[in-house]
């Protein structure tokens, strides 16, 4: 059975910690005026993180590979986005490709 006080404590600490992590950036930036070069690096850092998030969530599941259907769906979406297709089409095509492949038994 779940230990209610402990679960509640875990949730509240996670909430305060997560908010602090989110709030840290805006607070630090309001304290110092950053040179343009540093601002460029920070902008690049966000892109690097998001790109890594795309790669890990597309290609891996837990500690192992994600199978075929999901990466194939993301690839189709990525190619469409690269060809400047409408965003809605990118999203729907990625989901439909993965679903379609699974329907015919591709993992």
């Amino acid at each position: 059975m779940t230990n209610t006080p402990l679960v509640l404590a875990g949730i509240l600490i996670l909430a305060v910690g997560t908010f602090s992590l989110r709030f840290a950036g805006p607070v630090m930036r309001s304290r110092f005026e950053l040179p343009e070069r540093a601002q460029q690096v920070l902008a690049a850092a966000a892109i690097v993180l998001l790109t890594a998030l795309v790669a890990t969530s597309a290609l891996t599941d837990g500690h192992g590979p994600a199978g075929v259907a999901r990466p194939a769906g993301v690839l189709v979406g990525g190619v469409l986005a690269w060809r400047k297709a409408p965003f809605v089409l990118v999203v729907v095509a990625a989901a439909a490709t993965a679903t379609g492949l699974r329907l015919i038994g591709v993992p």
Partner: protein
Amino acid sequence: MLMRSIWRTLDRGLARDIGLVCLADGVVGLSYGAISVGGGLPLWVPVLLSLVVFAGASQFLFVGIVAAGGSPIAAMIAGLLVNTRHVAFGLAVSDVIGSGWRRLPGSHLMTDENVAFAIGQDDLRQKRAAYWAGGIGIFVCWNIGVVVGGAAGSVITDTDVFGLDAAFPAVLLALVLPALRDRATRTAALIGVVFALAVTPFLPAGLPVLLALAGLLFYRAGKPALEVSQ
């Protein structure tokens, strides 16, 4: 005031794109609520997490560990690890969030999706509108989804069926692609991807993405004039 200026600035195409992502997040919320309750947790656990933590990946991780009989403290630490990337997001979008009291709700509403939407816009007004509309929309849809999914139980427990597991990486990819046209950024991002994928088999969730920041060591910011002449 804030809401009115968001809606005035947001163009219709962008509003539709954001709406689509909010809807998809709502469906993932349905599955998260259903999985949590189906795993034996009381409804208040996924609902409270969604309101006060509001970070999908860490919430899935938290309920997964606790429902499997793991320690809530271990679940909390795992969740924090996954959420550390928000520090870098906050540094990158602090101008977009604004100053003063707005930093409080603005920080809580920070997600991968609305950060990516903001980065994808050209001027600061559009960035702000995209960030706030995305954040508020996702917060509302996500929390409604979680309550409904948790209360209704096993309606949707596996979003893979709808291909949403492929849709979310595609959403983020579409939003970061324009920024990846810059060569210095692309080099750093691709090296970061290699780092992250290489360590994924060995490290706990969250750390691989964080280690991608090592790709910044290879970031050579443009003297744009030189880039063009090459």
